[in-house]
């Protein structure tokens, strides 16, 4: 099999011995992914020594609970929304789903407070914080639509009460909490997709930036003590920060 000379000029070849096209979108994406997440950063077997507190456990408990939520919800989806009202097995699976949601939120809220008191957004970790908070907000919506999809007294009462709040914002025109079919679709399809995508992105960002280090000893008096380098890739993020922009000085270093 012959390979055209233009491609032969490229120095790199892939695992199959075929030439890599440096400008190809697939190649660019792969290169970016490998640069951002080399294997030892994506799945490290070492952590900084300061990662030694029970508070770190609540992030992984949140993830584990999410897996149980999705697994039990999938079983409920397989048998349909009426199954758990008429089957003792279904009721038990519904109970697993309910309690895994309770554990999920319990762990997530402690994780959130823990990260707040660590100021875990420091050191280019703002996106990690934002994806975490948005995951929490979307999860609240996912759980809420679950309560509306129960087809029992609770869902009747919650929907007729919640409609006033939703309608007052104008969103009730599009998001009708008394429409069981619509709420079920949001609960088992749309919102879980968003939650999983956000949590996945959040975990990737944690791996990308690592676990936030402790405040330096004497941090109270440390403001302005040292210069911090800001690379070109940080500029967009820094523009969010008006207070810091005012004190920033740009200097040529040649």
């Amino acid at each position, binding site marked *: 099999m012959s390979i055209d000379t233009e491609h032969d000029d490229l120095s790199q070849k892939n695992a199959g011995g075929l030439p890599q096209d440096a400008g190809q979108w697939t190649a660019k994406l792969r290169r970016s992914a490998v640069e951002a997440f080399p294997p030892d950063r994506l799945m490290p077997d070492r952590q900084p020594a300061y990662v*030694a507190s029970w508070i770190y456990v609540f992030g992984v408990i949140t993830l584990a609970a999410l897996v149980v939520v999705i697994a039990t919800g999938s079983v409920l989806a397989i048998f349909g929304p009426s199954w758990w009202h008429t089957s003792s097995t279904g009721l038990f699976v519904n109970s697993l789903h309910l309690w895994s949601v309770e554990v999920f939120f319990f762990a997530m809220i402690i994780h959130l407070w823990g990260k707040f008191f660590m100021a875990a957004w420091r050191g280019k970790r703002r996106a990690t914080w934002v994806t975490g908070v948005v995951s929490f907000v979307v999860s609240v919506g996912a759980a809420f639509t679950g309560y509306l999809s129960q087809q029992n007294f609770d869902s009747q009462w919650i929907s007729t009460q919640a409609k006033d709040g939703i309608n007052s914002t104008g969103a009730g025109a599009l998001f009708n909490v008394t429409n069981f079919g619509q709420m079920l679709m949001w609960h088992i399809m749309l919102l879980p997709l968003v939650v999983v995508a956000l949590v996945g992105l959040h975990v990737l960002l944690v791996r990308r930036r690592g676990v936030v280090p402790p405040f330096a000893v004497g941090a109270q008096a440390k403001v302005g003590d040292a210069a911090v380098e800001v690379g070109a890739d940080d500029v967009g993020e820094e523009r969010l920060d008006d207070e810091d922009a005012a004190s920033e000085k740009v200097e040529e270093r040649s």
Partner: protein
Amino acid sequence: MSPALLHRSEHRSRRFNPDRDVEEWKGAYVPYDLVKEFLIALVVVSLLVVLLSVLFSSPDDRPVTLGSWSRADPVDFATTAQTELANTSGTATYGPPYNTTPGSAQSIGVFTPEHWLGVHHPIDTSNDFVLGPLGTLTNQPKLAAALHAYRSASPAQRAAWNDAYAKAVAKASAQGGSLTVPSGPYGPVGVLVGSLTTMAQSGALDGALLSSHQFYGTDYTKPLLFIADGSYLSNLASKQHLSGDQWGMMNETGSYPGQAWLWLYTLWYQVPPMNSSSNGDLEVWAIMMGLTAVLVLLPVIPGLRSIPRWSRVYKIIWRQHYRETA
């Protein structure tokens, strides 16, 4: 300019801010098995969830239907049905997204978001909840005559009949599900409401409201709004500590934790002015949207982002680190 020089020129230096920046970690790294930690967490969470499910199960109180409501409390049903017929019920006067009722939409100043998208789920309670369903009943000459009389009457005449029936039904009684309303000058309204009560008690009204447009219905908006207009549902909810002044919808029937994470949202409904404001829902949502935005943008809000450093809670979290580096 060479690429290297350009790259260097894009670097800037700025003052260190401990609420934004970190010093590069130059200390020790220790073995940490993330996969093992996750699998252990998964096993522990699964066992905990199984234990909680075995011990506490999950609530599943039967829903209220128009049938069960009209059989359990026919007076409340008839009272509500008359307000639906007269277009004076909560749903009839709700405004967007169900209908247009001047002055019904909640607002903050000139900000009235209910009007932005307008009526999306049109409901005319008189026709949709009462006259329409009754029109599906056949072989009932008395009912047919009452429907004809009501439809052909003037608005003033209808209002007079409805007022008279509202006064009469306030003194109504029920025996074994049978409704007894004192006589009065309420024209055909007595037959209409009585027939609707009988239709509801048979279970036919639930089906008529649900399947008015299609066979496979999943939209319970109409029967839910009809049920919510009465007192029966809210009385049951109050007994289950679910009403608004009992921290409402964050609770569940029984002693289950419910949506405890909605505590802050529910809190605003308990305090003035939201607990008595006609715009309370919109005010609570505005507060919560503002607070959510603050939480999302916390890393760039001066002062707020310094709270973790000022609070010194981090000294507890990283106490081992500080002890070792002291």
